[in-house]
């Protein structure tokens, strides 16, 4: 049934992704592909896997963005200019448009925990759900002809044969920077909910009206070098490092901080 579940339970399992600590290593991307190609549903195929034009279905991808404040070009010297690594997978939206557009009932949102899944035996591969998703969370598997998406590792998180520590999505388990967190975002007292409240977690594209469950934590504000390198009170004038730029300014600030 592709209508969204009504009066569902308050559990909303999802991810919280910390854009401050993500180092863009793509370990979550690889670990996701590795787990899910042998897990739920058909394998995640690649086309021309060893050729020059390789492409395939991935459920989690890391994009990298530059953020440039007005007037700022060089990172750290003007405003908050920075590079942000941006992991993106299904956000398991509460008003998931990918679910309601599905003509066959293959796409569905689970009432008990809010996970959005595809029943591959019912999928006709029309691709409309991918068109309906603003986040690019769904990719067609060209070998099986069915739509693939993040399952929140539904075959790990409820797996009693796993150690407790392994009952989290593969991407969360593998992240070396601890930038990915898994939990119940419907429970205001859960660790992930507290993290979102503390750090000002936000929704992606709220204007699309999908009410995503996954939340993103903003990069922490950094101290601009210009502000940090000012003369300290009581310091002799001739020791002023004002006017230093680039590496020397960074060195100056770094030594100040030690």
């Amino acid at each position, binding site marked *: 049934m592709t209508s969204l579940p009504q009066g569902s339970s308050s559990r909303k399992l999802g991810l919280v992704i910390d854009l401050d600590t993500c180092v863009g290593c793509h370990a979550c991307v690889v670990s996701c592909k590795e787990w899910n190609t042998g897990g739920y549903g058909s394998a995640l195929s690649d086309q021309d896997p060893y050729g020059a034009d390789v492409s395939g279905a991935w459920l989690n991808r890391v994009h990298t963005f*530059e953020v440039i404040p007005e007037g700022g070009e060089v990172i750290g010297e003007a405003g908050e200019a920075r590079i942000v690594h*941006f992991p993106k997978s299904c956000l398991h939206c509460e008003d998931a448009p990918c679910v309601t557009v599905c*003509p066959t009932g293959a796409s569905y949102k689970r009432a008990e925990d809010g996970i959005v899944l595809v029943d591959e035996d019912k999928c006709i591969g*029309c*691709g*409309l759900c991918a*068109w309906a998703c*603003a986040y690019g969370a769904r*990719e067609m598997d060209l070998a099986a002809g069915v739509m693939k998406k993040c399952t929140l590792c539904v075959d790990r998180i409820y797996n009693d044969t796993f150690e407790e520590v392994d009952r989290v999505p593969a991407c969360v388990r593998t992240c070396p920077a601890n930038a990915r967190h898994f939990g119940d975002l419907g429970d205001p007292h859960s660790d992930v909910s507290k993290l979102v409240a503390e750090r000002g977690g936000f929704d992606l594209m709220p*204007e699309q009206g999908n009410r995503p469950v996954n939340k993103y934590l903003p990069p922490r504000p950094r101290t601009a070098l210009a502000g940090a390198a000012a003369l300290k009170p009581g310091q002799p004038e001739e020791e002023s490092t004002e006017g230093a730029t680039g590496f020397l300014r960074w060195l100056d600030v770094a030594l100040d901080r030690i």
Partner: protein
Amino acid sequence: MHPAYSVIFFTVVSGMGYGLAFFLGIGLLDPATMAAKAAYLSALGMIGAGLISSTFHLKNPHRAWRAFSQWRSSWLSREGVMAILTFIPLTTNAALCVLFDIQSLPLGIAGTVGAAITVYSTAMIYASLRTVDAWHTRLTPACYLAFAALGGTLWTLFFDLLSTGSNALQLSLLSGAAIAGALALKLQWRARVHLQVPNSTPETATGLGHIGAVRLLERPHVNDNYLTREMGFRIARKHAAKLFRLHLIMAYLLPIIMVTLVLVGLTFAGFSAWYAVSAGLSLVFHTIGMFVERWLFFAEARHAVMNYYGG
């Protein structure tokens, strides 16, 4: 958006088929004539060919029957259900017309209503997507309905001229009105697209707008993927203005000239079956113009996900 030829063919051809079915249902052609029989078979042929073509873009077409199940939520499913339901009165009336020279008005009205709802459902598949700003408007179904009506009047006029021309004067006036109506709606649709401020931007897509302007530094992978191939189609943009002018000339200007010729002939020289040539040409031009329109409809449309892929 990637313009799949199967979907372009389906929406254009079955759209015209439903337009013809719409006017056949209200009895504009005399069912005793050969032209009416040919018209019924043409309508069924166009609708059937379009629907079969639409299954070609499915990766698992053998499961297509499942698409009739989710009519409560999905416009694609509603379209499928309505297409099948509309076949019932339409094929019955076609059989009555071909075999017994008659048609039933209640069945005809049912077919007319069904045809209109089917075309509306097709348009709503696109109009209901919040991810594509250009499509997400009531003008989209209005245009699809206007195009179906326009194609339908031109086909009906053509078949009427092939037989006795009993309704030719009214039908050519109706065609003129349909051309004007469709043109007005399409111009309004396109003006909206050009004035539009994108609903989503790289800033809202990443939530980093509070820091500054966001631009893509690196895509997740060097090569294209399903998403960039499907949503990132941009070949059309370079020639879009030229193609749109071609659409205007082929879909409206040449047909209105052809229809005017028929009208002038009917008014000053009386009926002649030769006018069907003019009406037939108007259909050829209009169909080409509609293929251009539909290709642009897909190829020009920008999808919100491209905010993550650098536009």
